[in-house]
């Protein structure tokens, strides 16, 4: 018996909503969406946590410019509050080093992290997922009973094909989908909404490709002023 599994549910007892930001492909804006979402929810007065579960490519600390903080130890570990967000990431333990882990080890590390982290009272916990429906996605679904998914895609055929696969898996497993977000839109027309209509999940909206974004990374105030964040803010209101 793995006793860790019995404590994980209790760790989320006081968290009202848990949203995993996911999407089949890498580089489509999951981390940016998760980070900006956490910022925007905090700005609206919600108590918000952000958990970066992309062990091989953690990015949220880079996007939000978080440095020099570390969890406090108190009957477990308590994520530090940065920018008003309770922030947890493998980077506290891995530093700037690459994390060469095999699938089963990623699972084990996720279980361990979920078992030792004390979130306390939160309105929202945003989870930044690694790409795909591999071990981490299945683990989150297995271990966090109340999780909802927010699926990010682009209009590219390549991203859309994978998003459909993920939606299919979630549907089969009966996992709620808070909505689908189209990111990095380049063209006037987009078929994303239509293409995904058969899944009967809320289409949250489209965000254009934003050329000013790169310069705003690492600077939360600047980030909040980008077109990306302004658009996402409208979408967040639909989500709450």
């Amino acid at each position, binding site marked *: *018996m*793995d*006793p*860790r599994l*019995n*404590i994980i549910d*209790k760790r989320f007892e006081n968290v009202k909503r848990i949203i995993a930001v996911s999407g089949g492909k890498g580089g489509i804006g999951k981390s940016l969406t998760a980070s900006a979402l956490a910022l925007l929810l905090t700005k609206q007065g919600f108590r918000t946590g952000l958990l970066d579960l992309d062990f091989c490519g953690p990015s949220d600390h880079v996007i939000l410019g978080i440095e020099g903080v570390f969890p406090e*130890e108190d*009957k*477990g*570990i308590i994520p530090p509050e940065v920018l008003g967000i309770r922030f947890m990431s*493998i980077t*506290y*333990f*891995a*530093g700037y*080093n*690459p*994390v*060469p*882990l095999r699938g089963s*080890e*990623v699972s*084990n*590390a996720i279980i*361990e*992290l979920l*078992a*030792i982290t004390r979130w306390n009272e939160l309105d929202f916990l945003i989870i930044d997922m690694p790409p795909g429906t591999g071990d981490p996605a299945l683990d989150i679904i297995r271990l966090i009973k109340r999780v909802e998914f927010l699926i990010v895609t682009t209009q590219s055929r390549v991203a859309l094909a994978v998003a459909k696969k993920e939606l299919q898996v979630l549907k089969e497993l009966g996992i709620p989908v808070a909505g689908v977000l189209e990111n990095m839109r380049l063209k006037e027309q987009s078929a994303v909404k239509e293409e995904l209509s058969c899944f009967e999940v809320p289409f949250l909206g489209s965000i254009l490709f934003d050329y000013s974004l790169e310069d705003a990374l690492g600077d939360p105030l600047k980030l909040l002023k980008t077109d990306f964040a302004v658009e996402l803010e409208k979408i967040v209101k639909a989500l709450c």
Partner: protein
Amino acid sequence: MHEWALAESIVFTVNEEAVKEKLKDITMVKVKVGELQQIELDIFKFALENVLPLSSIPLNMARIDIEIDESTLKCNVCRNEWNFRDAAGKLPEEESEAIHFIPEVAHIYMRCPRCGSPDFEIAKGRGVWIDYIEGER
């Protein structure tokens, strides 16, 4: 693993099993903890003392036995085997503490002593598990 989280998770698990198996009295709980977890027994016992009152079934400290499972690390590249204990002494405190919290980060801070690869398997001595729970109905 954090000692406090370990203590809590053991108590919750024993409680759940007691309900499942309709146990009224717990006579023995055997816990095995991998060496990589670097559990400090004093801290663990202190945590357990504090967590025991949360238990829905009476649990006695003396009936919880914890055994440290020695480690075997196996290199996936050259098949060399070694253990955490021998290598751990050379790790800076911060790195060894990171491994205590998330044992998998051993792959970041340790290398196969023979070929230098980070691609090794923690064949033994990683996990935390309850070996058995004994009780009376």
